[in-house]
């Protein structure tokens, strides 16, 4: 059988959506049990020594593998939104992501050694601790902590939704494969329509499709838009869509199980549990990607065939920049400005990520930091380009996923390519469980950072500095339960714009913290006012550009992904670049205009100690 015909044979069954088998649920259960077990192990490992340093910093004992595979910006979104982008826009997404080629060396090489040293010199357990200690300024520490909690809260709520969605697809015969936000059945019943307050003419138009089933919100809205005039649609669509939304029991069940699992094991093992589960899922992810790469390329008959097939199903845009435009309305997915931007975005979102910084602070030694550089470099090399190739093969094998369903590409491909293998369902399950692990690990690490912000940076610093270990432990647990409960409540009506929120939080945190972190690490002359200006300058710029874009200021430039939660792309550049620029200028100018910091304090952090230890020699 030729490769092309085998591809067609494989592609045939996808006309009817494949059902998730018990293998997927089994794989998720393994993940959950393994994570709880890791939590117990972490609990034992951190029990020696002080609670705060053990719970929030793993007693500074991270080794190279743990640091390498967990300290950068990979999250659930990396393995869910990204494949959908490749499937939709084609090879250009390789350029979009390729900044990751230098993420390991920049993430650890720019700030790693200095952050690790400063955190030891000051005894800092958290990033705000470090900012506070650099100038002996409680106000700066508190500001940093509030910013971190602000960005992380956004991210947390979005990630809880991802976790619930992954749980939902794992249920056998749930009928839902997608990780999409809108993958569920929509129906406006006659009873619900009768209960809506609508003008008579609108009611009559909508009644035409009462009691009719729609696969998802996108299809329902399209039908609604077709029936209503523009003004009517704008005025009434939100309440009509809300009335047609089903009560999604599987989503809520998934949300419950996800929350109990992730909050449970994080409470058990704190920072170490978060890091170790992250390491576990990273290894699983690598195994899944390599395995799926071999299966997908074999199924389609080679990479070249995959591209040729995919181009024949789409168009030339699939193999060239600025990317394939499925809507055919002139949108450029990656014009030059955004291509340049994303080479900055991935790198500086890694350098300026507070969750990444705290893991570097937890590194055991400089040897661990430098080893992490090449370990992560190899890992990224085996993950990102192979994922691009997998999704190009996906477009050739499963060419017609509609918009709103493109998130299904990895689950569908996993089921398709393992269907004929022994234990195929379980193998597919292992591949599908990987994104669940990624989301769990991300949420777990954010839980630790937010709880440390509340307990260490607010309670212990400002409310009760004399608090004992018992109190701090109890408060840490309460903080995690509280944050979990808030995230669940926020998802009773699930948030929209999931992917856009993740991007906003990551780039916002980078624009806020990257320059201040560089200044406190390397510049003696920087001051409290300068650092604060740098933080507010970066954050303010991001906020202004997002508010302008979201409120519809300026014409839609028709670049980037299609989303209503879009920023204003000044000169076609991502807002993070403007945020970094303003943060840099504000930090430097205000520092130079204000009184220099205390010379003794600066000397303590920048000069050699008189009877200091000598540099260690490099091991042979």
């Amino acid at each position: 059988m030729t490769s092309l015909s085998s591809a067609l044979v494989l592609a045939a069954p996808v006309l009817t959506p494949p059902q998730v088998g018990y293998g997927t649920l089994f794989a998720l259960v393994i993940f959950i049990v393994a994570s709880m077990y890791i939590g117990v192990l972490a609990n034992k490992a951190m029990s020696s020594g002080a609670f705060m340093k053990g719970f929030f910093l793993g007693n500074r004992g991270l080794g190279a593998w743990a640091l390498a595979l967990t300290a950068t910006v990979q999250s659930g979104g990396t393995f869910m939104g990204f494949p959908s982008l490749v499937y939709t826009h084609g090879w250009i997404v390789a350029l979009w992501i390729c900044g990751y080629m230098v993420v390991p060396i920049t993430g650890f090489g720019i700030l790693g050694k200095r952050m690790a040293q400063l955190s030891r010199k000051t005894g800092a357990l958290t990033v705000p601790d470090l900012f506070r200690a650099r100038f002996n300024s409680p106000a700066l520490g508190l500001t940093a902590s509030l910013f971190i909690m602000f960005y992380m809260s956004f991210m947390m709520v979005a990630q809880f939704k991802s976790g619930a969605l992954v749980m939902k697809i794992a249920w056998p015969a749930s009928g839902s494969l997608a990780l999409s936000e809108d993958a569920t059945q929509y129906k406006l019943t006659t009873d619900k329509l009768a209960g809506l307050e609508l003008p008579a003419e609108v009611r009559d138009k909508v009644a035409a499709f009462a009691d009719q089933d729609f696969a998802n919100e996108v299809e329902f809205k399209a039908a609604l838009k077709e029936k209503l005039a523009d003004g009517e649609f704008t005025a009434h669509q939100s309440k009509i869509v809300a009335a047609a939304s089903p009560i999604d029991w599987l989503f809520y069940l998934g949300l419950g199980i996800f929350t109990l699992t992730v909050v449970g094991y994080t409470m058990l093992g704190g920072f170490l549990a978060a890091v170790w589960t992250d390491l576990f899922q990273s290894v699983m992810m690598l195994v899944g990607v390599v395995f799926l790469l071999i299966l997908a390329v074999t199924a389609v008959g080679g990479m070249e065939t995959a591209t040729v097939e995919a181009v024949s199903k789409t168009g030339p845009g699939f193999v060239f920049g600025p990317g394939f435009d499925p809507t055919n309305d002139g949108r450029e997915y990656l014009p030059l400005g955004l291509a340049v931007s994303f080479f900055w975005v991935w790198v500086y979102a890694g350098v300026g990520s507070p969750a990444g910084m705290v893991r570097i602070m937890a590194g055991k030694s400089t040897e661990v930091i430098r080893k992490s550089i090449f370990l992560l470099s190899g890992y990224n090399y085996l993950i990102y380009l192979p994922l691009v190739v997998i999704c190009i093969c996906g477009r050739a094998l499963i060419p017609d996923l509609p918009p709103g369903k493109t998130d299904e590409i990895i689950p569908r491909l996993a089921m398709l390519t393992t269907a004929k293998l022994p234990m195929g369902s379980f193998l597919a399950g292992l591949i599908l469980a990987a994104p669940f692990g990624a989301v769990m690990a991300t949420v777990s690490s954010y839980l630790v950072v937010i709880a440390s912000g509340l307990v260490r940076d607010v309670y212990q610093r400002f409310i009760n500095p004399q608090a004992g270990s018992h109190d701090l432990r109890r408060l840490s647990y309460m903080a995690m339960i509280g944050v979990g409960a808030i995230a669940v409540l926020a998802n009773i009506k699930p948030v929209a714009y999931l992917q856009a929120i993740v991007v906003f939080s990551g780039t916002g945190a980078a624009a806020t913290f990257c320059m201040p972190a560089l200044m406190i690490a390397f510049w003696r002359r920087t001051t409290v006012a300068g650092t604060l200006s740098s933080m507010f300058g970066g954050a303010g710029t991001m906020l202004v550009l997002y508010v302008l874009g979201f409120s519809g200021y300026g014409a839609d430039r028709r670049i980037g992904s299609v989303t209503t939660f879009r920023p204003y792309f000044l000169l076609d550049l991502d807002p993070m670049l403007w945020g970094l620029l303003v943060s840099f200028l504000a930090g430097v100018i205000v520092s130079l205009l204000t009184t220099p910091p205390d010379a003794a304090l600066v000397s303590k952090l920048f000069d050699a100690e008189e009877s200091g230890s000598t540099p260690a020699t490099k091991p042979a």
Partner: protein
Amino acid sequence: MSQPTEDPVLRSARREAVVVFLIWLAALLYTVPYCYLNGYNRSVESLKFVWGFPDWVFWGIFAPWTVCVIVSLYFGHQFMKDEDLGEELPEQEDELGLGGG
């Protein structure tokens, strides 16, 4: 009174940070212009493949990514210096908070 000497860890960290910044800049200045000049708005007829990749992806992304992996290996293995990160504050002080000065 003698001037205090700069912390050797700071000195090596700064030197390494500058080198890393230059590596990032070199990767940016090669990758994006190469892909823009060779991978945008071409005709399908002109498309060639290298090892299964479209030619511009191979030379503009795969090749520099491979170089970056090798450079990272050299940087982490040979260039970056191991240093003593210093003693940490005593546990009790750490538990009760710190002044920084």
